């Protein structure tokens, strides 16, 4: 009799095991809760958001640039003083900022954590999304088309051994350019050999704060450059996801080497004093024909 009860209990336990099996397909309890909307925390530094959030933009970043690329930055700033866009191509060309500038979060971010891939959605300038592969794959052997977001491989780590992942380490390669680091036009090397390493982790006592320690290895710099980004979770239950459509709403127009404004009447306007008119030689040729 005693035996029968035990058998019944054992059967119940086995049945529960069977029920558990399909549920194990994705045990999201093993991963940190990164759901919701994340925005960048500004650290009281004046000016445009830059790569190192603890320092002012432009020369204030004290970036470890090579002398050659220091001149590139200075030329960008000089051009901007004169009404130009400098190296910041998301401005007039609506090109994606790419990695790592996109992780400054000029617009809100969503992270979607699945076992094989962590997705990052940021709708700024271009509808950029990153796929961070966490399925244990190696770097692809076949040639990869470089992209602004690059190819990212990640690894989840349980640092404190509590059975839950708490750090996502990511490495990103196969980038294309131009990819300035901030609106000052802080350059990356034209060879696009950048490697970007990231460590994402939440503040232990405040999980609504997320950190991203980014290290940029790039030939425009004399050494790897590490910065710490801080993101905050929007407490709204249903945050609004704004659509940021740069290309069709941009008031800046690049024609030849010049950038012009589109005025309120739609017509072209100069962006600086004494700017030459757009070169209309192709219309003259048409007229001659």
């Amino acid at each position, binding site marked *: 009799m*005693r035996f029968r009860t035990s058998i019944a209990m054992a059967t119940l336990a086995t049945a529960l095991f069977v029920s558990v099996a399909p549920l194990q397909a994705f045990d*999201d309890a093993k991963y940190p809760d990164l759901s919701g909307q994340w925005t960048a925390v500004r650290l009281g530094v004046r000016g445009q958001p830059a790569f190192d959030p603890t320092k002012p933009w432009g020369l204030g970043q004290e970036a470890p640039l090579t002398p050659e690329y220091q001149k590139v930055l200075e030329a960008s700033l000089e051009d901007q003083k004169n009404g130009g866009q400098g190296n910041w191509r998301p401005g007039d060309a609506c090109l994606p900022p790419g990695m790592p500038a996109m992780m400054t979060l000029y617009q809100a971010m969503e992270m979607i954590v699945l076992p094989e891939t962590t997705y990052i959605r940021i709708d700024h300038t271009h*509808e950029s999304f990153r796929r961070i592969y966490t399925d244990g794959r190696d770097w692809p052997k076949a040639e990869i088309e470089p992209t602004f977001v690059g190819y990212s491989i990640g690894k989840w780590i349980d640092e404190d051994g509590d059975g839950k992942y708490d750090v996502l380490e990511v490495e990103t390669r196969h980038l294309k350019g131009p990819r300035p680091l901030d609106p000052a036009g802080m350059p990356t090397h034209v060879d696009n050999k950048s490697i970007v390493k990231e460590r994402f982790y939440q503040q232990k006592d405040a999980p609504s704060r997320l950190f991203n320690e980014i290290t940029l290895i790039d030939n425009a710099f004399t050494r790897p450059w590490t910065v710490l980004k801080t993101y905050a979770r929007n407490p709204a239950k249903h945050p609004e996801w704004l659509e940021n459509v740069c290309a069709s709403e941009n008031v800046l127009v690049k024609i*030849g080497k010049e950038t012009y404004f589109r005025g309120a009447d739609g*017509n072209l306007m100069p962006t600086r004093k004494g700017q030459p008119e757009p070169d*209309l030689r192709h219309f003259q040729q048409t007229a001659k024909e």
Partner: protein
Amino acid sequence: MLDRNSIGTIALAVALLATMGVAQAFDDSKYPDWKGQWRRADPGPPRYDPSEPLNAQQAPLTDEYKTVHAASIADQKAGGQGNDPTYTCAPPGMPRIMSIYDPMEIIITPSITHIMIQHIHDSRRIFTDGRDWPKGFEPTFAGYSIGKWIDTDGDGRYDVLEVETRDLKGPRAYDGTGLPLHEDNQTVIKERLYTDKADPNIIINEITTIDNALTRPWTAIKKYRRVATKEEAVWPESVCAEGNVHIEIAGQNYFLGADGLLMPARKNQSPPDLRHFK
């Protein structure tokens, strides 16, 4: 009275239940397997109703909007862009997004199904957390989508995703001919997405558009095919602004030539008005 063995077994069962409670946070086996890369299964150019040719969609347009469409086609014949706003890299918006111009990924989580398409600006969030329509949100080209998973055959697995999309902005066209939606942007789009019973690598999207430019709701059946590959899927990056040769100035379309300078987009087109440089 239970003996020690029974108590131990019950304790084990309780422990297992506790574990299950955590694991149940996201039971992805309840959802259809829509992983991978999806492309348009219907042959021919992207269009709203794949059962009809692009140039003869049989859209139930009102007379007013038939005239708008005819004007768009005439403008395109003359070298213009007609009503197709995407030449400036404006997003196609809904329902045109679902003609999937570039590969699509569907990411299912309990609260949101993400439709990821890297074309111009074509990704969507479909909220499946039981929320109601929001108040005071900015309209978007993709619209605001609320979905509901349904287990139609009662086998304990969801097999249909029903979606309704509202709060759209414009201008939006159904296709490259400039087949128009109403400029009031009061469009409502209903979708039913499900796996083809005969082929798990086909998703069917029954899409119905309700719009004031139409005399009645317009339904089309779209099919998407999963790309079969032994290798990892390649996800190309599509950046419309990169290399776009179209430029709009004061409502006129011009080309940017290989030298970056302005060129006419049509015969005898006047150069842009440079009054602000005088």
